[in-house]
């Protein structure tokens, strides 16, 4: 990357199951005011703003109209990206590397609690001719994918349940986690089936929350923050639209996205060069599937790393120490932002009780959920 981009600050609010006392404007203002205060800036100093949002999550036909007032971005260059937060971070880096902007803010929020018919909205994402008329829960896509993944890798339902146990336990040390808890594998396996082999407890429950990131070009970043967290690599990819033509049981989009990011960050052996991972766990099996797509482990090897305790907070390859989406809650388009936030807190040594010792490099990877095949990756470092 010709110009280094630094994360100066991240402001966040919410991460609770519901936020009934705040309108979406008020929720975003609170997160933005924390981010700007931590960076010591006013919104008029900011060159560009990017919001990650989807119309039908907000309940508007043109939701980008309503994103700038609460960011203080009136009469400013503001663009809405209908994609994962980590894609918007990649876009912000491009704005800075193009030289068009020095100070860029990226925002996303979840007001999932305001969606009365969440499953209907998700089903409305299916192809209307080939898939939607089957009229079954959208989680069927994850059911087909998980089943194929178990067959291809020999991973068991018990191991996927162990991911739920690990992440919800990690979340006990995260004050911003809505769905923490102590569970056993047996508890998780006892949960009701939704789309076998996917059951209720292995689906990341939803949460409300907003996250605002302040990014700056290298020299400005150093002025605003004595030790910013650097973004050393970004990547994103979409496999395909169709359920009919995708490679079931694997995550090619995560693989392609990570190759892009690794190339920029100069990473050749992820498991050795990256100290912590915050990867997609919107369904428990996806954490293992993602680690293999990211080439952290070989195909069918992630399960051994799990069994040997390597993925835990004290392991040599800590994954989702924040609690992940299973523990913190799924934040719609802001899901990747929560993963990036954990990297920022860990690499700034501000992660409190769950702080990992001497960490320098972290990777965040997020997926946009059913029925999509879009993944995004951001690699950060504090060197």
């Amino acid at each position: 990357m010709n110009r280094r981009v630094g994360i100066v600050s991240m402001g966040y609010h919410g991460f609770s199951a519901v936020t009934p006392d705040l309108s979406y404007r008020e929720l975003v203002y609170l997160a933005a005011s924390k981010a700007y205060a931590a960076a010591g800036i006013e919104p008029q100093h900011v060159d560009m703003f990017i919001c990650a949002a989807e119309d039908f999550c907000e309940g508007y036909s043109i939701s980008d109209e309503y994103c700038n007032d609460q960011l203080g971005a009136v009469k400013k260059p503001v663009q809405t990206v209908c994609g994962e937060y980590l894609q918007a971070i990649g876009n912000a880096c491009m704005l800075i590397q193009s030289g068009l902007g020095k100070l860029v803010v990226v925002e996303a929020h979840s007001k999932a609690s305001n969606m009365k018919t969440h499953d209907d909205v998700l089903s409305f994402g299916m192809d209307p001719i080939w898939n939607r008329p089957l009229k079954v829960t959208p989680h069927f896509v994850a059911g087909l994918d998980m089943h194929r993944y178990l067959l291809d890798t020999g991973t068991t339902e018990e191991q996927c349940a162990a991911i739920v146990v690990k992440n919800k336990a990690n979340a006990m040390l995260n004050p911003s986690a809505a769905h923490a808890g102590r569970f056993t594998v047996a508890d998780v396996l006892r949960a009701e089936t939704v789309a076998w082999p996917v059951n209720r407890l292995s689906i990341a429950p939803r949460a409300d929350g907003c996250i605002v990131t302040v990014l700056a070009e290298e020299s400005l970043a150093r002025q605003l923050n004595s030790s910013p967290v650097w973004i050393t690599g970004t990547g994103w990819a979409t496999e395909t639209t169709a359920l009919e033509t995708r490679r079931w049981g694997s995550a090619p989009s995560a693989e392609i996205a990570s190759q892009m990011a690794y190339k920029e960050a100069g990473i050749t052996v992820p498991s050795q060069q990256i100290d912590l991972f915050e990867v997609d766990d919107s369904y428990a099996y996806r954490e293992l599937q993602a680690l293999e797509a990211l080439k952290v482990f070989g195909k069918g090897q992630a399960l051994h790393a799990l069994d040997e305790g390597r993925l835990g907070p004290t392991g040599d390859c800590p994954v989702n120490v924040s609690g992940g989406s299973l523990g913190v809650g799924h934040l719609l388009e802001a899901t990747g932002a929560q993963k990036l936030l954990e990297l920022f807190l860990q690499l700034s040594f501000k992660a409190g009780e769950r702080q990992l010792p001497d960490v320098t490099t972290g990777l965040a990877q997020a997926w946009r959920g059913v029925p999509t095949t879009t993944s995004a990756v951001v690699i950060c470092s504090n060197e």
Partner: protein
Amino acid sequence: MGYNKVACVGAGITRFVRRAKETGRELAWEAAKMALDSAGMTLKDIDCVVMGTAPDAFDGVHMKGEYLADGSGGFCKPYMRHFVGGGTGVFAPIHGWQHVASGKFDTCLVVCEEKMSSTFPHPQGAFITIFDHTTEQALGPTLIWIFALEMNRYMQRWGLSERDVAKVSVQNKANAIDHPAAQLGQKITVEDVLNSEVLAWPVKRLDISPASDGAAAIILTNEHKARQVTDKPVWVSGVGWCLETAYWATRDLYYPVYVEKAAKMAYDMAGIREPDKEIHVAEPYDPFDYKMLHHMEGLLLCKRGEAAKLVADGVTARTGRLPCCPSGGALGVGNPIAATGLMKIIELFLQLRGEAGKRQIPGDPRVGVAQAWGDLMQVGTVVVMNR
């Protein structure tokens, strides 16, 4: 500015029609394939894909960007969808510019698509949900209301008559006769416009562009790649975008400040100081006839309140000093929202290469500006191109 130069090297467009048999995915493919063929390129030559498409409520699919991915060439590629209301069509090349100017990618396929005909009882019904859900939607508003409110304010502020405004519709719909994608190219008179059904006074049927299905695509590359692909690259020399407050009823609608701010951002980048003299061809956004005038002023192509005079004096005709909407605009070619803006970018691309056929303006046009508008009278997206 340390960015890489970015050029447009290819373009493709489908017909704009009231109802298309194709699915949105198929429409996107038709335009994207034509753009690749026009540049002699294949999907292998494309590093990344940018998709611009407006409300999901039109095609009727949640996360519509994901739904259109395979038809847009996004298979196993970096693919990102942006959405800034009606401004999406001209923001698409800006988003593509960001991908290439940063140096992260060498080539970018920019695709815009809209299929409005799936929406019932009428595509216009999807517009009730652009208003504030708590303080406005209960009044039963539709998009035409806000245009009528703005048109009335604009005409009242500058003392214009409905007749002055109607001339824009006459000019653009006539220009569209020469555009192969046109849905409503036709010879009409000012009287036809004045006598057409009043939808929301002062807006009448022939003051408005139609709801349409359609797709368009262009290919952007860096300078090195552009030289390999064509000997007539058209450079994206200026980009600008600006979003006003959502509290639209607290701003005076007669002048689009957000268009001016976006235009100045683009002009500064392109080194243009006197747009009314240095611009050779313009494609202001014209979903309604008065809107072309409104945006000509926001683009600083003339003094405030004087755009109507330029149209009346033939200055904006294809043979005039400053041709505006030689393509036929949204009024004539059609208005599949996101694809409309990109149709205007494609018109600049063809005009500046002297390849606009029957629509070609005389002389040697070297600098053009295209603009789109959207949201609640709120977003301006402006691109300057030059050869």
